[in-house]
């Protein structure tokens, strides 16, 4: 039997070098450059090397930056919860009840997923508008003109976010559920467990890795959504990505944009650490 390989093994460390190089070049170096940029200043729309805390003082003293960050965080949390709630039954159905149709349904989801984001977002505008397809149908059903006026609202932003990010949750959860040993589910039934109890005590715990992976993917991507709040949200509820764009482009304040970028990254990392800690604690309690 082969010995388990350890990090002390030089060969193992060597094989990780390419990954470390890519990670360093395309993540760490840009991150350090962003951090460096946040300590500089601007003068006459040009970057000047000042090495001071002016931008950070500005970031921590302006409430509106934090209100936008809080809105972004709450929208990301709601989007993650909705995606998981919708993805769970869809993934379960794909793996169990719709096995014969799984390929076709997966193809449809992939097709929608790979369609250009701008096209999808503008499609939603045409669908949700006061004079759009949805309100046209509702009017035909007797609900009156512009019965559902949701476009250009945070609700519309949420529809767009969930629509764009749902496939990440569906596929990770479906993959996780597909690997569950069917005998374990059958054993639960044999032991007299109801369908609900089997789902709750066997299927969901075993699908946890996929649920967590899907949630992390959706949450991280939600923090950076740009098109949905800008186009479907009507711009009056800006989120972090728009704030950063405004700082870089409109205000030509690159140090401010860099500082706000770091704030979003830190908020995302801390949130994931918090959720990760809670999930780990819950798992330990369940095993105990």
């Amino acid at each position, binding site marked *: 039997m082969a010995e388990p390989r350890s990090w002390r093994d030089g060969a193992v460390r060597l094989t990780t070098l390419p990954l470390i190089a890519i990670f360093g070049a395309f993540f760490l170096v840009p991150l350090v450059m962003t951090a460096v940029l946040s300590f500089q*200043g601007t*003068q*006459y*729309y*040009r*970057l*000047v*090397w*000042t090495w001071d805390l002016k931008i950070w003082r500005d970031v921590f003293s*302006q409430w*509106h*930056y934090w*209100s*936008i960050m809080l809105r972004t965080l709450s929208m990301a949390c709601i989007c993650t919860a909705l995606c998981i709630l919708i993805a769970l039954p869809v993934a379960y159905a794909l793996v169990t009840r719709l096995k014969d149709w799984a390929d076709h349904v997966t193809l449809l989801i992939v097709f929608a997923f790979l369609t250009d984001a701008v096209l999808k977002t*503008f499609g939603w*505008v045409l669908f949700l*508008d*006061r*004079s759009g397809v949805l309100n046209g149908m509702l009017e035909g059903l007797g609900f009156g003109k512009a019965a559902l006026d949701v476009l*250009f609202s*945070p609700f519309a932003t949420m529809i767009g976010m969930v629509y764009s990010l749902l496939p990440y949750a569906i596929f990770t959860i479906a993959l996780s559920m597909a690997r569950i040993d069917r005998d374990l589910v059958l054993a639960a039934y044999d032991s007299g467990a109801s369908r609900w109890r089997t789902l709750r005590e066997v299927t969901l715990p075993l699908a946890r890795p996929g649920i967590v992976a899907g949630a992390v993917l959706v949450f991280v991507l939600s923090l950076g959504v740009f098109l949905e709040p*800008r*186009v479907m949200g*009507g*711009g*009056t*509820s*800006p989120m972090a990505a728009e*704030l950063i764009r*405004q700082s*870089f*482009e*409109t*205000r*030509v*304040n*690159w140090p401010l944009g860099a500082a706000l970028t770091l704030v979003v990254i830190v908020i995302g990392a801390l949130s994931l650490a918090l959720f990760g800690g809670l999930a780990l604690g819950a798992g330990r309690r369940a095993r105990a």
Partner: protein
Amino acid sequence: MQRPMSRMFGPARRDVLKGMGALGLAGLAGLKPARAATRMNYMCWEGYDKASIIDPFEAANDVEVSVDLITDSPGGFAKLAAGAWRDFDVVSSDSPWIQRMGPADIAEFLDPAQFADVYGDFYEQFRAPFAPLEFDGKVTGLPTRWGWVGPTVNTEYDSLESWASYDNCFDPAYKDKICVLDWGDWPIMPMALHAGINPYEELDDAALNEIRLVLRALFKNTRAVVADLSVAQKGLMDGSFRTLIGGGTYCTSALRKDGMKHIRSIVPEPKNGLNQGIIWMEATGIVKDPSDPEKARALLRHLVSPEVAVELAWTEATCNLVPSAKAEALFSDEQKDVLQMDYMWEAWDKSQFHNVAPNIDQMLEIWQQELAAAN
């Protein structure tokens, strides 16, 4: 000590690229003939890159023009200021940014005497000395396109008279029927003027607070703050937006070109001694140390020539006025109608010129703050 970032690099990137280009050419010698004797790099808005504009210049000057499109003027300025000026020869952008490029040491100052014939072809209003494109009496560029910022109205839903002032923007009867265009400072300036403040002058805290209050009131009545022109135009066409604020001719002309002549951009009547309209203008300048100054000047002259001005006025995405008086005779009646030429001097007379605003960063910050608190 503060050092501009663009000055931190040693050899000019253009020189390095030239060297790399020479090496590449040496390697490819015999495999692929060069398309033109020289190459120029041109930073511009969409429309300036039309084949009918660039191709004749390339053919006449044996030069290959490589175009870099900008999507916003501040971004273009920032890119040049960060060091990209070494890579470019000519730039077309909004006039306040071209005006800034001279003193920022990223664009050449022009000798107006060299362009006397060009100025001679312009409308009187754009002839030298033309203050909006001067810094300390030195010329930073030539005007290429212009228009006005004012309410864009679909006359099937609203009369033009009802937009003789911006009062409707704050009228509860218009709640959720207004669309504000999120185009940098464009929507802020008309609102400041409506509040009785000239945003192009140095502002004190009280004036800035007044701008804050007017923006707050505007956002309360606004259905959407839209950056995308097609979304704004769609809403205007179907009546879900009664007017667009912060746009003007730039977003009207393409609709009028498509036959929607009932959509017009107007300028409100002067209020509190302040003209309420704003004249925007695009201009073209020569980037500092162009690889071939002669060719850079030739491209600049080409862009403002009457024949090219007509091409520049009439593009796929937007149609706009040009400063060339000689070009007017080359427009058809239909084109003149689309461009609202019958109204242009009335709009001019009722407008301020869009310029470098001393407090623009504070105003943009206020915009951010009020937008963050709007919902």
